[in-house]
């Protein structure tokens, strides 16, 4: 789907170098933030070493399900726009869905329907530009919000005691917003296919049971695995739901 000319640029060492630099920056940022957070929570007795290790380990298995979802999207992107851009845009920096929408829109403005037409150099340029422009908005707003609202939010969101009453707008923001967002995502999934509805129900039930077992039985080790297992059970159930609903 790419002309030879585009293929050469899309897989060029320069684009690989740019991608590698971003990965290096991300790793540096992660390690620095981790170090500072660890120092802070230990010195202020907010968490114990054990709890830090538990939270860290939870991330390993919990990421596997979501990583598979990103994997699917990334696979289709590699053929369309090349490996370095896939790694940079889909894997890191942006969300897979948003990035694909942006790249598609950019290429389309340049007259190329991604996936159908052969990708031309100008369309590749426009796709790259669209993705960079799209994230720039977020990368400006995030520090603005963190710095501007940071103090305010810190006060509201870290009550000295859980008995402190949060003002209503804060409750709406901290509880209403997330619930609305995830409800919307679930609605979109169910709208897309009935099988998704079955998969969602199975994952919810699996999560509930696994979490109950992890918290109430001797199987404490299960805690690190609940999200990963629940997602896999949900995915596997698609085979059964397909049989029932198809």
């Amino acid at each position, binding site marked *: 789907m790419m002309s030879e000319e585009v293929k050469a*640029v899309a897989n060029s060492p320069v*684009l690989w170098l740019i991608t590698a630099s*971003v*990965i290096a*920056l991300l*790793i*540096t*940022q992660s390690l*620095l*933030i981790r170090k500072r957070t660890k120092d802070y929570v230990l010195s*202020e007795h*907010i968490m114990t070493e054990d709890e830090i290790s*538990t*939270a*860290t380990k939870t*991330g*390993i298995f919990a*990421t596997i399900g*979501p*990583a598979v979802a990103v*994997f*699917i999207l990334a696979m289709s992107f590699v053929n369309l726009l090349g490996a370095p851009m896939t790694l*940079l845009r889909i*894997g*890191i920096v942006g969300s897979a869905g948003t990035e694909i*929408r942006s790249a598609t829109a950019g290429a389309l*403005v*340049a007259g190329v329907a991604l996936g159908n037409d052969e990708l031309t*150099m*100008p369309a590749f340029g426009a796709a790259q*530009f669209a993705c960079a422009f799209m994230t720039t908005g977020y*990368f400006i707003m*995030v*520090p603005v*919000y*963190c*710095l501007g609202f940071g103090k305010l*939010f*810190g006060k509201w969101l*870290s*009550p*000295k005691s*859980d008995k402190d009453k949060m003002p209503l707008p804060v409750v709406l923001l*901290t509880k209403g*917003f*997330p*619930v609305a*967002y995830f409800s919307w995502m679930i609605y979109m*999934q169910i709208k897309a296919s009935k099988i*998704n509805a079955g*998969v*969602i129900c199975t*994952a919810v039930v699996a999560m509930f049971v696994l*979490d109950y077992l*992890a918290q109430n039985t001797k199987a404490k080790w299960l805690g*690190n695995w*609940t999200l990963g297992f629940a*997602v896999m059970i949900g995915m596997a159930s*698609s*085979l059964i739901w397909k049989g029932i609903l198809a």
Partner: protein
Amino acid sequence: MDENKVLTPEQEAHEEEAYNNYLKSIHKFGGGIMIAIMLVTWLAPLYVFAKGGFPGGKVLAGTVAAMLVQEGWSWFTEPLMWLPILGIPGLYLGYTSGNIGSMRAPVSFAAMNNVGAVKGSKKGDAAGMFGMITSVFVNLVFLLIVIFLGSWLLKVLPDVVTGTFNYASPAIQGAGTLLLLKMLFPKKAK
């Protein structure tokens, strides 16, 4: 830490100072490196432009317009929505590492849940953060597999297995939402 204990004004002042110092360094690393990443990502389109991929001013203007329509509103609302969910350190890292709704947030909930932290508390923010950082590294490993072994994997894995891959997203939304609800509405205050 016993979250219900009554603090003397001195202890309270100390806690606040420690928290502010912590936040200051997070702004430095989180925000500073975020801006650096933004600048580096711009090198990619510039390089493609230099190699003959400059689509012309008209196309760029059209792309800007399309992006403003498509994402303009989300620039303002989306980070504001995630801020209370992920906390300040989590927001910086979430945006530089991407895939918040489908990966970072559910992982962060799972980590919070596993240490029994309440969402929005300092412990919750930190626990979510540790989980999220692990996910950055695990996801990088997965991506490298995609890049180097992806097509081969899709060929060798049986269709029964690859068929279930398409249902990863609804499964995450289901399990993640249950975790979120549990975190937002704990049965008893700890």
